[in-house]
């Protein structure tokens, strides 16, 4: 859903914005693997597991806080009729793609 915000940037900056967004994702992914291995080296299994799951909860709070303090621009929401019409058109494709992802 946060990608909705990225689509709001000016057209000439959109590619770099999405690149940076994906870069943050890849960096986070690598960092997460590193953190897991470091914690498993340093702490015992039970303590490490508890610590990491607690950090998982803390990430939820952190992300929520980020979006609370962030200035989110208003989005133009299409009319209900237009929305229903367009979703109905693309529903089979969307459902197929969602099924593939699972």
């Amino acid at each position: 859903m946060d990608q909705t915000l990225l689509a709001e940037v000016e057209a000439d900056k959109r590619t770099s914005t999405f690149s940076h967004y994906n870069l943050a994702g890849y960096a986070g992914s690598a960092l997460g693997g590193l953190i897991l291995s470091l914690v498993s080296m340093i702490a015992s299994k039970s303590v490490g597991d508890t610590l990491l799951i607690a950090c998982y909860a803390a990430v939820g709070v952190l992300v929520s806080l980020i979006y609370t303090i962030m200035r989110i621009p208003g989005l133009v929401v299409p009319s209900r009729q237009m929305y229903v019409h367009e979703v109905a058109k693309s529903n089979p494709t969307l459902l197929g793609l969602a099924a593939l992802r699972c």
Partner: protein
Amino acid sequence: MSGSSGNTLRGVYAAKLARTVAYSYMALLLPLYLSSRGLTPLEIGIVLACVGVGNLLMLTLAPALVNLLGLRRTLTILPLTLVLGSLLLLYGNGLAAYILGGLLGSLQRHPDGVGGATRDGSNTPRGGGGG
């Protein structure tokens, strides 16, 4: 988006970074953790399948949630499901608690899903006018 767009984007990047760090280690940790809590491979598979169901639910319900609550509220409230999911994983007892924990923990996950950002970035939503 202009003016404060830099701050907004930095916030989005920070949130993305924090989420993917957590998701990537959790994707590896969850099966091991459940195994250490005494679940059989079949039960662990069921919990992981529910994580996938959570993703599917989120992808299906997200537009309706945004229409109902607004984007800011949705983005603010959904990450808190991670807290509930974590509490259930830590203090829950039994398969049902872990299933619910897996479901709740995955509700905020969306396309970058299990394994971090390796499958991410393909869905660019329609731009609105905004400001």
